[in-house]
């Protein structure tokens, strides 16, 4: 195991990794930007080192700053958390070149799974059904129209680079497609510096289900079940749960087993998540793989009792998994609520400011992963995640009941949060019956959704 780990991230995930380091007996150094000087991970760390200004490009996204910080503090590994440098093949390579370990897949594995289209082809060849899409990037409008015709409308226009919904449009007719291509190109160019686009079949009422996998350096892998992330707003997850209410136990097991077989065969290594779209009939289509620890990993930890961050570190350190699939047991039901600094009543406008009062809920099956404390000033420079409330129960009903109590007990004063939307979800028939689809919140409108919940 590592002696000393540099944590190159911030917020709740920096705290989560810090805790995992301590559990494994490794020292932890938190690398932080000037804007995070007074943050909880910095305060609790064994050591902390300022790597740059608030601008993430010059701090959390600066590979030279992060690696330099790890070297001068004598670290032998770097944990990138999620986002920032977590899936950067070049970064992983330079970390290794400096004699340290990148906690994640090795650079060559990140490289093999870097392209979304390439990964679909690779895993498709290893037996996963993939979402029908264009054959490579769209060369021009004529090519786009021909490919859309072949795939069948509706189709989703997607930029090759990036994510987060930018440059994405769903179209139902050739006319619509022609009219959005230009704007998608310019949006993609502006956001990612790359205007290449591709097409994907659009499933009207789809659910987002993902499979957690772990593969050690020796090609031994296990799956840790699936998570349902169908509650989304503009392609951003806001609530995740497991098991998915969308599939039967047999279908869930089939999905997870096919996922782990395919990634092991394709040479994946370390923790990873395979994302699938599931249509109304229960057919599933692979869309992409995330080569990192994910925000929603505690859902899986609650069901399995496995410390995923510790597992990730052990794999990176070259240890064998030491367990087989039969050792992974699933118990009960878990739900994660992402608590964001944003205002559901005003189009989810992000917020920043001082937390006047903070109280985390507790009780059986309740876990709060958050970097908040009373008096903390939420800086305006980064994402809006304030923390994650995870509830577990022996069954879905109990988890929901505990979720209601915990959301009611949670106190965050001074900043507008999206707690209302979670309470509205727990009051909505669609959610309670397990029928949420990825476009439901956007189609109904968050304001209408909140109003409907208020009438119940």
């Amino acid at each position: 195991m590592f002696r000393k780990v540099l944590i190159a991230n911030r917020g709740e995930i920096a705290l989560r990794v810090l805790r995992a380091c301590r559990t494994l007996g490794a020292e932890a150094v938190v690398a932080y930007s000037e804007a995070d000087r007074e943050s909880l991970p910095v305060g609790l760390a064994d050591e902390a080192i300022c790597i740059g200004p608030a601008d993430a490009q010059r701090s959390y996204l600066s590979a030279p700053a992060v690696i330099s910080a790890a070297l001068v503090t004598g670290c032998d590994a770097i944990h990138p958390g999620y986002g920032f440098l977590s899936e950067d093949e070049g970064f992983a390579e330079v970390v290794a070149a400096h004699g340290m370990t990148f906690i994640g897949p090795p650079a060559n594995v990140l490289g093999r799974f870097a392209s979304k289209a390439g990964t679909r082809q690779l895993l498709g060849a290893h037996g996963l059904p993939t979402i029908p899409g264009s054959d490579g990037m769209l060369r021009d409008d004529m090519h786009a129209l021909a490919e859309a015709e072949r795939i069948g409308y509706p189709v989703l226009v997607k930029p090759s680079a990036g994510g987060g919904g930018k440059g994405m449009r769903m179209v139902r007719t050739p006319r619509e497609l022609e009219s959005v291509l230009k704007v998608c190109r310019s949006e993609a160019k502006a956001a990612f510096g790359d205007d290449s686009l591709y097409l994907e079949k659009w499933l009207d009422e789809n659910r987002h289900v993902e499979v957690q996998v772990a593969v050690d350096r020796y090609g031994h892998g296990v799956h840790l079940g699936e998570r349902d992330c169908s509650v989304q707003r503009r392609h951003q997850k806001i609530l995740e749960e497991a098991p998915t209410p969308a599939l039967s136990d047999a279908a869930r097991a089939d999905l997870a087993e096919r996922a782990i077989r395919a990634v092991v065969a394709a040479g994946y290594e370390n923790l990873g998540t395979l994302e699938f779209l599931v249509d109304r009939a229960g057919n599933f289509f692979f869309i992409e793989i995330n080569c990192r620890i994910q925000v929603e990993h505690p859902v899986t930890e609650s069901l399995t009792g496995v410390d995923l961050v510790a597992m990730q570190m052990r794999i990176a350190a070259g240890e064998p998994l030491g367990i087989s699939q039969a050792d992974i047991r699933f118990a009960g039901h878990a739900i994660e609520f992402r608590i964001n600094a944003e205002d559901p009543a005003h189009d989810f406008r992000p917020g920043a400011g001082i937390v006047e009062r903070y109280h985390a809920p507790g009780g059986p099956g309740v876990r709060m992963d958050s970097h908040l404390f009373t008096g903390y000033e939420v800086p305006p420079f980064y994402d809006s995640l304030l923390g994650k409330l995870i509830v577990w129960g022996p069954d879905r009903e109990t988890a929901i009941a505990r979720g209601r109590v915990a959301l009611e007990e949670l106190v965050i004063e001074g900043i507008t949060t999206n707690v209302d939307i979670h309470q509205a979800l727990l009051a909505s028939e669609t959610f309670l019956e397990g029928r949420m689809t990825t476009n439901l919140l956007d189609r109904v409108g968050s304001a209408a959704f909140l109003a409907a919940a208020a009438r119940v």
Partner: protein
Amino acid sequence: MPDPVPADARPSRDDTERAADHAAIDRLTGELLPALIAKLGATGLGEIEVREGAWRVRLRRPAGPPPSARDRRASDRGAAERSTDRGPERPPRAQHMHPHPEPPATARSDSRSVATSPAVGIYQPRKDLTVGSRVRAGDRLGAVDMLGVAQEVVAPIDGVVGTSLVEPGEAVEYGQELVVVEFGVPMSTNGTGGA
């Protein structure tokens, strides 16, 4: 640089407000502060406050023990205090070690400024400079090696090189105080003579 904000406009700022703030900060650090520091030094007053639009800048001589290195770095260029009504509480801080010893808590004088590190890495001072060398604002005082790339450490003000706060070859973090520059310009009408 920490982002000072007007005390009465803390929540939601749009881009134009932000741009205006940044322009104000530049003006503050470039023009107003050196003049105010000189004036405070010359008058022997305990405190000077200047208001300009929504901005308020207050300079105060330290009364009690000198603030910690952390506090000094958090405040802009040392002497200017953020005039906010409520600062964030500190998170619980366990044993908190830096990779380097804290700079010595030298007595604070408002007739000086401190050059800070532009990067995290290994510090090397310019060899031809010694205590007492005259420098102009922007002059190179040394460099911080960040993974083989030298990042320049520059003098924040016109003045005279004073005490070094870190040793050559020592690891430094971003924003760490490295070299004192005394605000000592003899021909200046309201300078205090520095040193």
